[in-house]
């Protein structure tokens, strides 16, 4: 089933001359884990916001083409209606705290209260989202007393509690230490396995290669490639788009190792291990 269909999407922010998105088209199936990569200002965040209707409803500006999410045409659907289907986690954890709740627990309830979710249903949702992100012990804390990493987990949990079909995450682990970001990736993967469609912008290529089903490469507002991690990261023109392949792929490239079946570079630690350990010059 097609969960997201984007056709010829063009967008320009107000007061700017350049298109932030230029003729982008793709389709995403239900339950896929999609990684979005590209240099800063390539259009990644704009694309995320277009899936949620913030582009164009919030910013206005100039818009063309269409985005269809679960059968709804985003340009004709209100953001609050889309919020029932799509969750969006932003990069900066500090500005996405609602700012009106005194505890983390209440913060998670904010979106549910707005949606009119009955009280009895709220609590199990909040508690399971907190457990998934490992923040149960902060339930009674003031959101602003959390560290950057803990806030980032809370921001993800707040969106997950709203039980969207699709979750879009824009660099959700920037403030986390290595162990923390690994835990968050695993939590998101668990959701993906339960059928949630995941779209994640991330600069940590090793993680993108390991967790994504497909990778979308953007540059200057255009969709350069949208394919399996192996294929995208085996391109020889990545540097041109300001991207470096995962370290493991670069090592294999340096050694001239390709996976025999596909002719592509191995991407993950496990795959690289299998190939490197048997490698002879």
């Amino acid at each position, binding site marked *: 089933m097609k969960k997201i269909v984007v056709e010829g999407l063009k967008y320009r922010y107000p007061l700017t001359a350049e298109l932030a998105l230029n003729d982008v088209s793709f389709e995403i199936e239900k339950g896929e884990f999609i990684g979005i990569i590209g*240099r800063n200002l390539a259009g990644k965040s704009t694309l995320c916001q277009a899936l949620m209707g913030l582009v164009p409803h919030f910013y206005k500006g100039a818009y063309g083409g269409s985005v269809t999410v679960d059968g709804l045409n985003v340009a004709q659907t209100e953001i609050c209606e889309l919020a029932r289907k799509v969750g969006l986690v932003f990069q900066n954890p500090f500005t996405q705290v609602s700012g009106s709740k005194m505890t983390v627990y209440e913060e998670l309830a904010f979106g549910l209260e707005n949606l009119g979710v009955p009280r009895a249903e709220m609590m199990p949702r909040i508690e399971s989202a907190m457990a998934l992100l490992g923040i149960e012990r902060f339930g009674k804390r003031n959101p602003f007393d959390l560290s950057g990493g803990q806030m980032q987990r809370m921001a993800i949990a707040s969106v997950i509690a709203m039980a969207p079909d699709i979750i879009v995450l824009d660099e959700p682990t920037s403030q986390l230490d290595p162990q923390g970001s690994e835990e968050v990736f695993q939590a998101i993967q668990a959701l993906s396995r339960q059928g949630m469609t995941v779209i994640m912008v991330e600069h940590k290529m090793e993680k993108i290669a390991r967790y994504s089903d497909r990778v979308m490469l953007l540059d200057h507002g255009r969709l350069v490639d949208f394919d399996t991690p192996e294929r995208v990261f085996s391109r020889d023109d990545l540097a041109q788009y300001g991207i470096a392949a995962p370290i*493991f792929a*670069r090592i294999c490239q340096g*050694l001239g190792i390709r996976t025999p079946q596909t002719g592509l570079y191995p991407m993950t630690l496990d795959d690289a291990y299998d190939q*490197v350990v048997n490698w002879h*010059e």
Partner: protein
Amino acid sequence: MNKIEIRNLVFHYTAGEPILNDISLAFDARSTAIIGQNGAGKTTFVKLLKGLLKPVGGDVVINGINTSDATVAALARHIGLVFQNPNDQIFKNKVLDEVMFGPLNIGQSQDEARERADAALAMVGLAGRINDNPYDLSLSERKLISIASIVAMNTEIIIFDEPTIAQDFSGKEHIKAIIRDLVAQGKLVLTIIHDMDFVAETFERTLVFAQGRVLLDGSTREVFAEEEVLRQAHLEPPHVTQLAHRTGLPGTPLTVEEFVREKRAQGAMRPVTP
């Protein structure tokens, strides 16, 4: 002479809840990464070096000055700190004015401050934007402004707090180049950082903090060889090193190039078995 000497440093906000516990260290000219889990005491440690916090016990001596006897403003001539969030410092309407603020504060003349600010902005690649409003630039560019505003103060010691957050690949390469440039100028560069690959490629020495203590201290290669100890501190070695460990490649390579070289050398030594 060591630029920084720390003797039996103890710090806590509330007695009985130590944040830093009996740390003794010296920093020479080697660029040094400080790694550890969130909450390990790294930021507190850096604030103590900067004189923003004063030790509860022990001494911190910067260029021969004990931080307990000096004001933060006086120490600012010797040691600069680039805060994690550039928005916590930017207040001028023009990039150039923002970068000249620190140099003028520590007594540089208008001309000298201008010269150093121009040089620092050129170093971070913002020479063409000196008249822009900092808030019209992107967050990663504002980060570069905050770096330039400390570099322009021309201190002998520069500390970065998480310089690579929100930077893409070329942004990281850029910051790597800035750090190498500063090291080449003979400055002591210290960095708090979570990105192990960046540490492996950039720093000569690495300190591992865990629960208010220094768990490991040595050359970056020595430190990343200690996979077991790193795991105790909830850290993992850089990706290159992980693959090397798994495949039994000796010598703890830190970069892709080292790995490839080592592996080729190993392959050449071993006869090909049929």
